[in-house]
């Protein structure tokens, strides 16, 4: 062991991060400023601009139809949201919700094309599989460090870290869904003279839709689980309240905020799952 001195891996990564920060400063600044502003507008002007009672009613109605006119999800959504409002955590909820939506959207926008690429090319699968493993097994806290380096603190680095953490399931499930399409259907498509693009949009993606949606559901859940962690670098929301509870040793405060996250998680989960089980089956 003594033969080889300690390799300066940490220093290399520091240098690389510094170089990236300096080189792409204009880009990071742009994202930090403009994207950050946009997130704030969505959270504070749009979502918080809606009266709480109206918001709850709209969610209730959507839940009623999304769940196939069953009352369970509707009742749960209405009571859950009312409880959060009652606990004076509405603003935190809206911030968390915004963060989850942005992180999920970006993850899906990045994840689906990568998943398609992975399904279409063996080479891509070979390269991406270890990368995805790495992204998922690396402790999520670690992503906070470059996030802060690139975007300092606030919502934007929170979204950034969440995206890295939450993207892999969408990529994996998209790949899986496309590869699961039966060989005979691919042959049928080829036999009728489809181009690669036609095959993708007319056969593979529609057939893989359920699996991809399951991946997206996972992605949303992971993004939500990142909320508490992201609040350590100043992302506003329910996570911040949990951290406050932790720092001040207020069990009750932390628990109530945690309950809020659970309620939000269940509502989002059931919504995305119900969207997945509609049409024809």
């Amino acid at each position, binding site marked *: 062991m003594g033969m080889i001195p300690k390799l300066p891996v940490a220093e290399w990564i520091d240098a690389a991060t510094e170089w990236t920060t300096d080189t792409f400063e204009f880009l990071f600044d742009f994202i930090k400023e403009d994207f950050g502003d946009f997130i704030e507008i969505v959270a504070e002007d749009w979502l918080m601009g809606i009266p709480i009672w109206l918001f709850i009613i709209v969610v209730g109605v959507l839940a009623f139809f999304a769940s196939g006119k069953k009352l369970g999800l509707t009742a749960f959504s209405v009571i859950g949201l009312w409880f959060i409002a009652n606990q004076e955590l509405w603003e935190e909820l809206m911030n968390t919700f915004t963060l989850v939506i942005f992180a999920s959207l970006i993850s899906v926008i990045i994840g689906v094309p990568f998943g398609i690429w992975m399904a279409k090319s063996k080479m891509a699968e070979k390269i991406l599989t270890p990368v995805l493993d790495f992204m998922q097994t690396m402790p999520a806290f670690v992503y906070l460090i470059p996030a802060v380096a690139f975007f300092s603190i606030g919502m934007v680095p929170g979204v950034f870290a969440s995206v890295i953490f939450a993207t892999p399931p969408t990529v994996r499930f998209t790949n899986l869904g496309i590869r699961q399409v039966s060989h*005979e*259907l691919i*042959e*049928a498509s080829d*036999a*009728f*003279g489809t181009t690669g693009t036609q095959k993708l949009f*007319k056969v593979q993606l529609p*057939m893989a*839709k359920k699996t991809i949606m399951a991946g997206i559901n996972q992605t949303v859940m992971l993004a939500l689980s990142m909320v508490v962690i992201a609040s350590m670098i100043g992302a506003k929301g329910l996570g911040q309240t949990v951290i406050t509870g932790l720092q001040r040793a207020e069990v009750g405060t932390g628990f109530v905020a945690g309950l809020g996250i659970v309620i939000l998680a269940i509502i989002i989960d059931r919504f995305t799952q119900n969207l997945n089980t509609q049409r024809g089956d």
Partner: protein
Amino acid sequence: MKRTIINKKEEVRDVPIIQVENLSKIFGKNAKKATKYLDEGLSKEDILEKTGNTVGVNRASFDVEEGEIFVIMGLSGSGKSTLVRLINRLIEPTEGSVYIDGQDLAKMDSKDLREVRRQKLSMVFQRFGLFPHRTVLENAEFGLEVQGIDKNERKEKAKKSLEMVGLGGYIHQFPGQLSGGMQQRVGLARALANDPEVLLMDEAFSALDPLIRKEMQDELLELQESMKKTILFITHDLDEALRIGDRIALMKDGRIVQIGTPEEILVNPANDYVEKFVEDVDRSKVLTAENIMKRPETVDIQKHGPRTALERMRKEGLSSIYVTDAKRNLHGYVTADDVSAAVKQDSDNLKGILRTDVPKVDPQTPMQQIFDIIHDSPVPVAVIEEGKLKGVIVRGAVLAALAGSEVNLNGYDS
């Protein structure tokens, strides 16, 4: 192969619609190398042992004429499914050529290949290959949609095609809601909607239960009457092959062992393998009067009298004999008893004792229908074509043919 087209009357074009030449597929790495062993005539097993490569298809050559139903028949592992996929290049051939309308598919770039698949070849799959997320109509219009044909036009064509297979009332259902037989009708309609020149049917009816399968075979034959498509039909079921095939290619271990009409394959199996294969076939459905008839013994009504007739019957051991004229037009028959009586009465003419209640069939009558006729008849059945006596069928020949023994082919040359 000497005869190429049988019982088809349409014009013959100079180039067969499908020409397959020396087509081979070897699966595995270094496949090209393994083709050398094919040259040396090594068996499939030997090549697998030596190189680790599997021979899918071994130097297949055949032509398919326009409007014919050409059946490729073999057991599982014989390479028939690989062969059909080589024809529309779902599988890349290792060597050899496939000409569709004289164009070599194996050398085409992907764009031309796509065009051929869109315009000329349609495929029907064993497990139907329907898209479960599309309705029956959307499935049927798939090929047209891919070609970028206008929405209304393609819907019209797809509907027509669905009506043709009897599914006009189901267009808005999903495939999962239909029975197997109906699903395969959708598969057929989808293939026909393109109006292709060639239908490739890969074990299209094999997943259906026997009654439905027979129904589908009948329907295909009925459709074929009006469409006159060229159909390449893959099956492992010999009865099916014999039933619908104009010609049959028998495959074993990737090699084509015999090509011929159903009759030829039954009557003249090329080798032991084919012979064993056809042993259990229900011959009565395949063989026709032509295959089992004998050259008839006759007397000439103008030239011969009762004495000649009696003499011939005695020589051949017959109890009756057919009476024709010089042009072999059938007049009737006389029995040994009547002839003996006529001889005793010194008659010199057969006209007085001629019987005309002749049991007749034409050369294409299937053997199955001959059973009843021959059962009720005291005399051999006459095979008549345009009024002329082509041959006779005796009871013994029917039994012999059913048993699968050598069939006397005396009738063929006349």
